[in-house]
């Protein structure tokens, strides 16, 4: 018989004196407190050093740093609007692509998939999360981009029957390195995280709830869309924010395939840049103080952007709790 089956009456007497136990309790609590404060201190340290490092750029360009799309290391004129727009657009687009897929994958795995193949599919999806981002980047550059240029971009661009606004949306150099392919890569990268968490959420739904719905004569689609997804609604917001947070900061894969041109992207198939890709591209060779400072300031902007996403997620969750 092991300890877990013992009830309280048969529990062995305390082996340690009460005083000793209190001491170890205090130490334990202290260690936990230390771990928590260390984390806070590290966070504060990062923010403070980014703010100090970026200060010369903020001071020099003022609010214009956020609205100007100039990025000229020669004349030392920096503005973050291009990378900010690129970051937000690629991340949101990636989310739009990945969310339905993540929902589809996890609903299939939980609801319809035979047991014996559910496991391999789940493992395959989780393996996607283990692929280093540089591998995604190289795959994007050497495989996805040429394929995309040849089979999607060129046919679309040479087609004459498209409406004008759509043609404007897809204007660009037909070589597959653009905002859209960067978003595609990002979508593949955030998919495993989102679907893994979403699957866990779906598994928390008590089987009675589903069975009751089926018992009332609901179809599969009705059970999923009217019962299961509303049941995990709150957690789903967390899934979305998790994906968005990861997409915002993704660096290497995006750097390879986004085309890396500063300034505003003018269409979906135009090349652009993100905050993380700009830092990765230029930090190592930034010799002037203002260039370094502008890049650190970009880092702070990314930090605030990610923080804002998390904060909004918290607010949404809180408002749903009532």
């Amino acid at each position, binding site marked *: 018989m092991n300890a877990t089956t013992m009830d309280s009456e048969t529990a062995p007497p305390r082996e340690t004196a009460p005083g000793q136990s209190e001491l170890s309790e205090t130490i334990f609590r202290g260690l936990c407190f230390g771990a928590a404060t260390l984390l806070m201190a590290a966070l504060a340290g990062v923010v403070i050093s980014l703010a100090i490092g970026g200060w010369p750029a903020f001071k020099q360009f003022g609010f214009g740093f956020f609205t100007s799309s100039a990025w000229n290391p020669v004349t030392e004129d920096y503005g973050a609007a291009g990378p900010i727009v690129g970051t937000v657009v690629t991340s949101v687009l990636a989310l739009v692509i990945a969310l339905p897929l993540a929902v589809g994958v996890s609903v299939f795995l939980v609801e319809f998939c035979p047991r014996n193949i559910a496991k391999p599919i789940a493992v395959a999806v989780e393996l996607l999360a283990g692929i280093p981002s540089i591998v995604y980047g190289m795959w994007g550059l050497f495989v996805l981009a040429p394929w995309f240029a040849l089979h999607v971009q060129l046919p679309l661009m040479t087609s004459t029957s498209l409406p004008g606004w759509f043609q404007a949306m897809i204007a660009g*150099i037909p070589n597959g390195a653009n905002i859209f392919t960067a978003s595609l890569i990002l979508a593949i990268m955030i998919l495993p995280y989102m679907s893994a968490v979403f699957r866990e959420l779906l598994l928390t739904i008590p089987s009675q709830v589903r069975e009751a719905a089926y018992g009332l004569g609901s179809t599969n689609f009705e059970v999923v869309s009217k019962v299961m997804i509303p049941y995990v609604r709150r957690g789903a917001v967390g899934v979305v924010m998790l994906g968005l947070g990861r997409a915002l900061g993704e660096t290497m894969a995006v*750097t390879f395939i986004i*085309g890396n041109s500063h300034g505003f992207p003018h269409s979906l198939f135009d090349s652009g840049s993100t905050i993380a890709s700009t830092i990765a591209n230029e930090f*190592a*060779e930034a*010799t002037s103080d203002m260039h370094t400072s502008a890049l650190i300031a970009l880092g702070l902007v990314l930090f605030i952007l990610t923080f804002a996403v998390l904060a909004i997620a918290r607010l949404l969750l809180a408002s749903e709790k009532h």
Partner: protein
Amino acid sequence: MFKTFVAAAGVAGLLASASYAADISGAGATFPAPVYAKWAETYKATTGTGLNYQAIGSGGGIKQIKAKTVDFGASDKPLKPEDLDASGLYQFPTVVGGVVPVVNIPGINAGQIKLTGPMLAAIFYGQVKTWDDPVIAKANPGVKLPSMPITVVHRSDGSGTSFLFTSYLSMKSPAWSSKVGASDSVNWPTGLGGKGNDGVSAFVKQTPGSIGYVEYAYAKQNKMAYVLVQNKNGKYPAPTAEDFAAAAAGAKWAQAPGNYLLLLDQPGANAWPITGATFILVYKNQENAASGQQVLKFFDWAYKNGDGAAAQLDYVPLPLPVKNLIRKQWTTNVTAGGKPVYTGK
């Protein structure tokens, strides 16, 4: 602020390197890293002294040597004489490389298209937009140029290659010089950016009608379709080791204060116009005579024994007269406690 980062990293570096007291430490440019590694391997085998070289980029190398965390810094971009004086540094070249414009034009092979400096600037500025533009056609009689839009591909990461290329364009085009300028990373008027030589080359290969620029070694090893660029003598040399060496030989190192010399548009019938050396930075006044001596001894050995390894890796060794000039500079320019650390043995 960044200095404190570097200083902190440097303290950690010093602690880590204390156990390898005899090793030389250096950091900087990625372009010469393979040849430095090859030299270091052979040097260690013959002398027992190792070299710990971190290829962190030229900008990083300059920051590290200024923070005194390494024995030498390495940069593809020479520091201006006034910068050297301000920080008490001395620089010398080690090997020569260059930049080669490469294209992907259907039906056009390597070396078939001839361009001049101003034409390159106009193309990279986005002024000349198609390959059959009269400006290009005039310089290429007999070549069937397609009526295809030109896509410009440039480096997205800050790099010595971009510095050399934009310096050349600035030299050849007043418009480029005033509107874009020369730097590791510039505000490119047109085109898209690939990360590293391989990023540029991938985009060029994938985009018909594109033109980019890569390091000579990279263009050679990947057999890329290069274009010929007109040199100072009005000739169109091919990007070969001989023609890079010709540019290095024609250069007037003795007249360049602080060895600040870009080997751009050098005289000589065979001189490749977009050539540049890569540089080593050391303190003029060495705090530690032994470590300063180790650095110069290493490069002295490399000048003497390293040409084969360099050529094998498609770098162009410095011509002998240049090496001798640099050796002579060492005896007067690098001192510790007023005494030269290198005496030529």
